[in-house]
């Protein structure tokens, strides 16, 4: 057993070693200040290590090592990119670097879009009030200092302000060209009162990636977030979604993950205003050398809010799925309606699911439920389908898709959900 103080010293030392020789990126006064603060947070708290309670199920070394490991590029063959048939504003990053030439113009009615570099050079009040602010807030009660590293050193990202109902989705596309890319991207999104937007993210990102998205959803505003993380096998990455919700606002975030040596998606949501609604969902399909971690923390800080966490994983061939999900209900948050479900379908004996569902409730008039299960395909259902003439493979495919359906149901737009469902069906069919 390593004493706490010694562990802390090791974490801090590791952070310092990573930061040594790295100077802060160039930028305007406000962003430089935010970066300095973030760097100081990282220096004080240190880098995560496997001995941290919060990293018990996921070894962070591939994310904290000085150098990224290579990851081969996945050949998509003749498969069309996801969301291709949707009318959207395309914003392309290649190996984590914004590619203006490959992107559409940064123009959409009711939406202001700029890059982090541009925004950092100007005194953009709302961006200043958001950049690193939610990340810093998210360091308590649990440290997530890879996000601080990102705030300090990310130079790439988009700064998006939504002032009305956006007429089409904003699609962020992460392409890869380099098997060795090590990317850090930091997005800011503010949805002004009563405004509404859909943000799509799609693509394998980089050989290693560290992403932060800070989201401020003002009173009565709505943000839909649908993400598909590509299919490259050997990648490692961590993403952080920090979202603050005002009164009567709504956030729906869905993530589809297939393949990846190590991917951790953290979702940190604060329901700050009354009657807010936050839904976080994920569907994960992994086979073989696959480790996927959903770590979610939803804080009910105001009365009459509703939150849902729906995470489904289909695992086989040694794949590991992790779910750490928490609902924290403050004393003031009466009449909270909180729901959390995490389930794994283990297709063989080598697959593993590790779950830590948590509720922490200080209000006395709330409705909170959580459940976590792992199991195999139900033999009765399988027999029923086969008795009706479906082949064993076809029947299993149907049952796997049925298992994932509850997570996909969290996507508000049925066309987007159907696009993802069909894609998943095609992937699973090819593997069967």
């Amino acid at each position, binding site marked *: 057993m390593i004493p706490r103080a010694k562990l802390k010293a090791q974490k801090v030392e590791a952070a310092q070693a990573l930061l040594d020789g790295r100077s802060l990126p160039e930028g305007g006064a406000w962003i430089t200040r935010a970066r300095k603060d973030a760097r100081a947070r990282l220096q004080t708290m240190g880098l995560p290590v496997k001995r941290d309670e919060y990293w018990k199920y996921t070894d962070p070394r591939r994310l904290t090592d000085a150098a990224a490991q290579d990851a081969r590029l996945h050949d998509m063959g003749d498969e069309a990119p996801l969301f291709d048939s949707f009318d959207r504003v395309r914003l392309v990053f290649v190996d984590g670097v914004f590619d203006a030439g490959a992107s559409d113009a940064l123009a959409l009615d009711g939406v202001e879009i700029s890059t982090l570099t541009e925004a950092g050079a100007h005194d953009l009040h709302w961006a200043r009030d958001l950049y690193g602010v939610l990340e810093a807030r998210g360091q308590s009660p649990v440290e997530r200092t890879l996000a601080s590293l990102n705030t300090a050193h990310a130079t790439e990202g988009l700064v998006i302000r939504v002032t009305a109902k956006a007429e089409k989705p904003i699609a962020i596309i992460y392409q890869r060209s380099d098997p060795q890319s090590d990317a850090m991207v930091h997005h800011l999104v503010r949805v002004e009162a009563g405004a509404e937007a859909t943000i799509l993210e799609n693509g394998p990102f980089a050989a290693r990636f560290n992403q932060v998205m800070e989201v401020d959803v003002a009173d009565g505003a709505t943000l839909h977030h649908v993400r598909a993380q590509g299919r490259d096998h050997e990648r490692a990455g961590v993403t952080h979604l920090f979202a603050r919700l005002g009164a009567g606002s709504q956030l729906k975030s869905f993530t589809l993950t297939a393949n990846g040596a190590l991917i951790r998606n953290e979702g940190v949501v604060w329901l700050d205003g009354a009657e807010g609604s936050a839904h976080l969902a994920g569907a994960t399909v992994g086979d073989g050398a696959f480790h996927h971690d959903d770590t979610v923390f939803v804080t009910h800080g105001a009365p009459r809010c509703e939150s849902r966490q729906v995470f489904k994983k289909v695992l086989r061939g040694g794949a590991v799925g992790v779910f750490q999900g928490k609902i924290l209900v403050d004393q003031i948050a009466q009449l909270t309606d909180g729901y959390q479900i995490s389930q794994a379908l283990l297709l063989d004996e080598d697959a593993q699911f590790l779950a830590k569902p948590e509720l922490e409730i200080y209000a006395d008039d709330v409705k909170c439920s959580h459940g976590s299960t792992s199991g195999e395909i139900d033999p009765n259902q399988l027999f029923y389908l086969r008795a009706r003439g479906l082949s064993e493979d*076809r029947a299993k495919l149907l049952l796997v898709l049925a298992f994932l359906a509850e997570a996909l149901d969290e996507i508000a737009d049925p066309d987007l959900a159907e696009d993802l469902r069909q894609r998943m069906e095609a992937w699973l069919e090819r593997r069967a």
Partner: protein
Amino acid sequence: MLEIKNLHAELEEDSDVKILNGVSLSVKPGEVHAIMGPNGSGKSTLSYVLSGRDGYAVTDGSATLEGESLLDMEPEERAAAGLFLAFQYPVEIPGVGNMTFLRTAVNAQRKARGQDELSAGEFLKLVRAKAKELQIDAEMLKRPVNVGFSGGEKKRNEILQMAMLEPRMCVLDETDSGLDVDAMKLVSDGVNKLRADNRGFLVITHYQRLLNHIKPDVVHIMSHGRIVKSGGPELALEVEENGYGDLLAEGAA
């Protein structure tokens, strides 16, 4: 059509539990046979062994459908060969729409039989017409398979599947269990509509009342995994009046 000869089966996990001890019967095209018998006599096991459910080991005997051995086939091959089992407890499948399920099943079987798959339009027309006859509304077709269905709805859904799949040999496993009088009539009407010269039925039931609606040609009494007596419809009435006691004593003699 369906020839069962000296069929012996035991539990796969425990070979001491012998459930079928030499069942023999023969259903000719156009005939309806009923199997009656007390609880634990092996009626439902017979339906599972015929349809290929895991968990049972056939140790002797044979079962053929139009000359083809069923016992060597996978469950889906038996379905494609024309066997249909209406389940005593239809299985709920959350996340799979009833319509998707029906269409996948119909097309899987058509494909296995070398027929063209039905287009979405053709399928929809067909399913609507058949559903209407069984008083299954559009809402029920949209819901996940059997989820939230009442007992009667589940059984009607089984008959709808039967009507859509047009099997040659239908095995109905206690289709009357959990049905009220009205539902029983609906289900029976559905079955009777499917009676045809080239189709056989094996109706497994505990009670005689279903046989008032679905009139059998032959009634078999099953006990301890064996057919102990066969006869006409009057045999079912005898059971209704006197119970199984006398018949079984007679069979054992």
